[in-house]
């Protein structure tokens, strides 16, 4: 192991890690919004939107991110929409993540039994009050593990960004391997940086799960 090499290229890696993290978090935030919207559409079976959302979810979940990125990156300019690597990466991640988040939130919503809603109605609560005070808090607790798993999954998926020439961790690693053939050091750095990003997220997930565990369990 050549430590000097590792130290020399740390700054470049930090820059790449920062890019990975920034685009990843932006994509996750958008995924969450898309997911909330789609989950609500499916939970309340909103006409017209309901089948469209299902089609989106199936397409998004059953195609690889790499292909989705190529479609956006090379496809959109063909129909006159200019793309740049960064927004393309975020768009691709959101397109993929939206469906995973939708399913995570939907399973949370559907875990709250219908009779809980009835119990709230029997107390005179409106639909909105029932959603806010009764359904959402319980659904959130159930959704957290799946949500955190999705966050980690999406952060890892950012490694595909290098395919549309984003200077992320993976791209930097491949680039440097190509230049200096220091494969071991480069791959070591790559793994280390992904761990540095993902371990805290994973830990946060565990803490959140523990704190929320009881909220949804048992009447």
């Amino acid at each position, binding site marked *: 192991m050549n430590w000097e090499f590792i130290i020399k290229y740390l700054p470049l890696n930090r820059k790449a890690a920062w890019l990975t993290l920034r685009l990843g978090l932006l994509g996750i935030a958008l995924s969450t919004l898309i997911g909330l919207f789609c989950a609500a559409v499916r939970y309340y079976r909103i006409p017209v939107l309901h089948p469209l959302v299902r089609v989106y979810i199936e397409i998004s979940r059953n195609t690889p991110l790499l292909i989705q990125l190529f479609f956006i990156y090379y496809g959109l300019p063909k129909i006159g929409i200019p793309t740049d690597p960064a927004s393309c990466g975020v768009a691709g991640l959101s397109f993929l993540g939206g469906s995973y988040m939708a399913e995570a939130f939907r399973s949370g919503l559907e875990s709250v039994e219908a009779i809980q809603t009835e119990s709230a*109605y*029997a*107390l*005179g*609560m409106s639909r909105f*009050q029932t959603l806010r005070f009764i359904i959402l808090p319980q659904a959130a607790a159930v959704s957290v593990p799946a949500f955190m798993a999705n966050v980690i999954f999406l952060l890892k998926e950012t490694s595909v960004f290098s395919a549309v020439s984003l200077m992320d961790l993976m791209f930097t690693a491949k680039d440097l391997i190509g230049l200096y053939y220091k494969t071991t050091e480069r791959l070591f750095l790559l793994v280390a940086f992904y761990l540095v990003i993902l371990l805290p997220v994973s830990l946060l997930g565990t803490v959140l799960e523990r704190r929320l565990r009881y909220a*949804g*369990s*048992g*009447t």
Partner: protein
Amino acid sequence: MNESILSVEHLTKRYGENTILEDVSFSVARGEVIVIVGPSGCGKSTLLRCLNALEPIQGGEIRLDGETVDSGAKDLTRLRQRIGMVFQSYELFPHMSVLNNILIAPVQVQKRDREEVKAEALELLERVGLSAKKDAYPRELSGGQKQRVAIVRALCMHPEVLLFDEVTAALDPEMVREVLDVILDLAREGKTMLIVTHEMSFARAIADRVFFLDNGGIVEQGKPADFFDHPQTERARQFLRTFEFESVK
């Protein structure tokens, strides 16, 4: 008898092709305790659920103090506040403490002062022997305790009519008593109640009138002594026999 508070006329309830209740009519006087008995699947619970519009009805009319209870009504939430309901499976909100379970609706729905409702809630909890559990979560309570909290939760809304849907059916035998005692206490206070139950001796003790429901209709009704000792119809006799055992020795 006092004035009528709840009246049901020609109520019909169907699920698709299945008729659950057909042409059911009755009225309940203020302060009256009605016990509804009948074989399972006869529509007892459905009848209660229609009364606070948890189930839409396909025919007839339900009126609470002259106002129509209609599952499509705009002021449905206001009507429901006047009809309390306690479920077989308690349905406490698992993410809230006992006190918050009780306070949420009076404070959020009726916009009453939190401190005032809290004082009332604590007093009621004291009465059902659960003041020590006010900060506990539902998962920490026994079935009987949960059900007593559910009753207090319904009471804090000051409902004019209380519906009890087989509230002891999910309880261990030794917990049934503590819940029934609370309900007996409410009867003494003069609360208007409709109670669906399989506890026949309780029904006999608490009811002003017993309805025997079978095949979607009220087959027989009367004072508990008359109904239990001298049932008029063969179906009622048959039903009551299922609660008796022949000696085997």
